[in-house]
């Protein structure tokens, strides 16, 4: 097998109509068409999906581990952001 790696792609699969695409894994491919075909063969051969998205991994801008404090911790003590302080009319309750 080759030691050189083709560009990395992230694969998103919609498992059923009406559901969202979910990240399912990644693979190497030369371009979008090859990535799509490889995703079909790698991730949907046991009927896992009805639609596939592939995205170049390098096109995904991600938050980093060291961003965790600044990004997410401030939300921890702000319970008032949860809609639990409102009286919901009986008719709207599910």
């Amino acid at each position, binding site marked *: *097998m*080759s030691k050189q790696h*083709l560009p990395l792609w992230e694969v998103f699969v919609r498992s059923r109509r009406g559901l969202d695409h979910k990240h399912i894994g990644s*693979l*190497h*491919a*030369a371009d979008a*068409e*090859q990535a799509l*075909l*490889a995703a*079909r*063969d*790698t991730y949907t*051969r046991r009927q896992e999906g009805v639609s596939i998205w592939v995205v170049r991994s390098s096109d995904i801008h991600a938050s980093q581990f060291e961003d965790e404090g600044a990004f997410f911790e401030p939300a921890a003590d702000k319970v008032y952001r949860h809609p639990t302080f409102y009286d919901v009319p009986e008719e709207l309750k599910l």
Partner: protein
Amino acid sequence: MSSAHFQYVLRLGDNALVLGQRLSEWCGHSPFLEEDIAMANTALDHIGRARMLLSHAGAIEGRGRDEDALAYLRDEREFGNFLVCELPNGDYAFTLVRQYLLDVYHQLLFEALTASADEELAAIAAKAVKEAAYHARRSGDWVLRFGDGTDESQARAQAALDELWSYTGELCTPDAVDEAMQAAGIAPDLEQLAARWREIVEAHLAAATLSVPPADWQAGGGREGLHTEHMGRLLAEMQFVQRAYPGLNW
């Protein structure tokens, strides 16, 4: 008539079985992991197709032979696959150019067979045509990549095509079995199908900057059981376990 019917379905099954066996040889050896999975998938699709067709052939024959008996207990001369299916895989370009030529052929053939007077065969064709369409997209993509790729990939794809083209005559020339089956409404008009095949394939090869070789000679004989020297080895490997331990199950 029923013997021609058996022969016809058997040949379709043999093409799928022998090509599936060849493709499965790539398992663990493809150029990269994603390709390895895709190639093994394609091999399994062919073996699945072979199972359906050989089971049906056995039922038509009516002598109690099932898919396993037909796959594992016949000798070389009794196989009716096209010679092109049994040729060794060669390099990746050779495997995929062959695959493209056969995928388009099978896509057209199974599409036509969905209207067969043989209802079981029509049902098998309806299943096979979808995967054949995918196979053709995948192998067609590789033909474009190789042909319109680097000097080396272009040269390899052209060399593969030059060799393979001489094995395509069998695909396009009806014999007595094909004619009998066409008359019975079981098989389509092969000459018409072949013309359509040539049209599609030649346009795609041109797009891949590959030139269609002159059809100066054509190999034949696969359908009559006259195979290349490669067939015996392929069968020896495929049939060994069942020959050594008859009736073995696991």
